[in-house]
């Protein structure tokens, strides 16, 4: 999946890919203070091509936990399951509903997105990307966006969560790359000197159908040097 990090203080974006095998579960957000955890399970193509290239994977399933509200939400490309204590409610992506519970508002906008707002916490948007059912290779996947991330605690970590606090970086020595549309540059971030590439990625948070093109500095090699530790450090054993 593509990770896109908004750095408002720099009026710029950072981005990186994480390439791991289908089935792997990654920790995206972990806030020990509010008890909110978000994990995502990867899916790949229906058929794997044997051309030696790295297989692209996407988020196929999300698990969101709020221990303070005793809430577990599992979101797949088919359905949304909400478990509150012993009560379970299941919705499909064909629903258009607004659900309000103490401390939580969940909106499902038919076949488009799901907006999950925790009171005094961040807002999460899950975007459903539908692929033609009979497509020989691709399958449906999910996008995950966070808004108002300043509302989470400073102890928040995870592949996305670590970037909810301000991250400082410097870019210099912008030079032409092999693709004239994608110049290279040198970036200093977290005391690491990295070679980065200017690319464009799509943000589907505001416009789930078409997306908005966002220019960003791409950090190669699974975000090495930008993310804390190695990307494999974020692998967890299961969705909850």
């Amino acid at each position, binding site marked *: 999946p593509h990770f896109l990090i908004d750095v408002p203080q720099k009026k710029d974006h950072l981005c990186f890919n994480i390439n791991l095998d289908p089935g792997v579960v990654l920790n995206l957000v972990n806030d020990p203070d509010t008890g909110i955890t978000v994990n995502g399970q990867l899916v790949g193509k229906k058929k794997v091509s044997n051309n030696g290239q790295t297989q692209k994977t996407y988020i196929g399933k999300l698990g969101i936990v709020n221990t303070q509200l005793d809430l577990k939400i599992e979101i797949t490309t088919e359905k949304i399951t909400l478990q509150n204590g012993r009560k379970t*409610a299941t919705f499909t992506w064909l629903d258009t509903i607004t659900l309000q519970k103490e401390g939580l508002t969940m909106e499902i906008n038919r076949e488009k997105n799901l907006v999950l707002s925790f009171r005094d916490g961040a807002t999460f948007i899950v975007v459903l990307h539908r692929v033609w059912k009979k497509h020989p290779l691709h399958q449906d996947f999910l996008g995950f966006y966070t808004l*108002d991330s*300043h509302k989470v605690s400073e102890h928040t970590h995870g592949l996305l969560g670590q970037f909810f606090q301000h991250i400082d970086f410097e870019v210099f020595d912008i030079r032409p790359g092999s693709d004239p549309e994608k110049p290279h540059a040198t970036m200093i971030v977290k005391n690491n000197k990295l070679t980065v590439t200017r690319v464009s990625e799509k943000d*589907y948070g*505001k416009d789930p159908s*078409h997306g908005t093109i966002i220019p960003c500095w791409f950090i190669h090699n699974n975000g090495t040097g930008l993310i804390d530790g190695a990307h494999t450090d974020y692998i967890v054993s299961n969705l909850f």
Partner: protein
Amino acid sequence: TNDVIFSGIDIYSMKIDSKVTSRFAHNVITSRAVNRASVSKEVLFEVELPKTAFITNFSMTIDGITYLGNIKEKEAAKKQYEKAVSRGHTAGLVKASGRKTEKFTVSVNIAAASKVTFELTYEELLKRHLGKYEMLIKVKPKQLVKEFQIEANIFEPQGISELEALGSFINNDLTQTIEKSLSGKKGHVSFKPTIDQQRTCENCSTSFLDGDFTLKYDVKRDSPGNLQIISGYFVHFFAPANLPRVPKNVIFVIDISHSMLGQKMEQTKEALLKILDDVKENDHFNFILFNNRIIPWKEYLVKATLDNLKEAQKFVQSIKATGSTNINDALIRTVEMMNEAHKEKVLPERSSSTVIMLTDGNPTSGELNQGKIQENVKNAIQGRYSLYNLAFGYDMDYNFLEKMALENNGLTRRIYEDSDSALQLQSFYDEVANPMLRAVQLHYPINATSELTQNNFNHYYDGSEIVVAGRIIDNDLNSFTADVKAQGANNDVTFTEQVDIEETAKALHDQEYIFGDYIERLWAYLTIQQLLEKRISAQEEKRKNLAAEALELSLKYKFVTPLTSMVVTKPEDKATIADKPVEDTSIQYSYPSRANSVDGD
């Protein structure tokens, strides 16, 4: 589960009733629902209304008992609201939702087999935009509705020249479901799709009613202005037709900092190229690009000849984004260039000078202190030119740009980052592209009037309208005169309008369309709007006085404005509050909303 709003609730009626009298719209939305389930259910009432509208009333009736909204000063309402929240109740709010709308939401728990009626009233003064008044009604019932109807009645004393009704969700098969009639001063529009017509397909339970229902109309203009008087209040609409256009001198100041790279830059270039197609031959223009450097296209303003326009197009196509943002030096350089052109008499003597700045971020190089930049720009312009700021996206301090523009006879417009950003830029230019009059002063009998709304305007643009309202304090006055003085393209012009007070009042009273003393409410609406706008650029002490004045009027006329809130006490003793969101707050900008994401394509 009981938390889900849609199940078991039958919304059997939804009516939108609009009465427009002399551009002042009074809308009532009524929704009736019944809980058909065997247990109590939560019913949600959700309405999107124009940002320019003020809510004036809300009520809900449950099993014959009516709970009314109560408009209070914001602080007092907040206390009641906080009390409710401390008891663990949630509260409904009005939230900014779209570009032009805000969302009003209330939910209430009703018992099995109980009925509930929600009624929301809001009012707004319709603005004339590119030759038409436009009223937007957002349509999105949660489900199929047995009785759905939009009824609009328009009464314009000047006579209605054209009337359109459009639905963004209406396909060709359903165009005939909109009934429209127009006769002299009255216009009527009705839209009542049956339950079967609402279905997206045969036997479907989903509704196609989702989108914008827009009414557009204009009035007949036999004279440049129109004066209306009722119960001691007057309103003067001024929109002269067939005037020669005043030549325009415009400098486009374009932010080309790094953050503009990509789609924003492409859309800006696309819009500038289209704008260049529309620049008139007797106009003068130039571009000043800025990042941490100031890059003028030409060292002086040039006439919009064919050759210059072609050269400008090439220049626009070559623009590339890089570097940081130096707003201060860019604007100072622009003003110097404009001053020089006037001094050298390069520009026509009777012409209008305008600066249009587009930026997507806060200053990051040169002078960074926003207050200092505002001061420098104000001192440089000295009221001679109009400054329009286009705020592209959300990564800037809107208040900073808004204050700066208001201090220099202009305004600020947000350009939303979307696929149609280029169109938004172009459409803004179209609004200010054709100045017809400069320095417009509207005068009324001094000793006979008071509490006038703004009566001096820098420009009158083609397709717009100037509106002034006030109180008549002389009870013995028989006739009322309005004098308008302005600078036209060729000479100074004067327009005079005179009406017989008794006759006018009688003629207007005879019309059944009129709801109460609409001119008084129109005056209050306009006064509050202008006080709130003045507040933005006023000094501390003046700010307080302006706010106090606007608050007093908001409470007196029961308007939910940014200074007041409406509290609704629900049967379960939950207090719900309706606030008016503002375009921008300093809190938002101290913590810009971030959207970190993981996705793929």
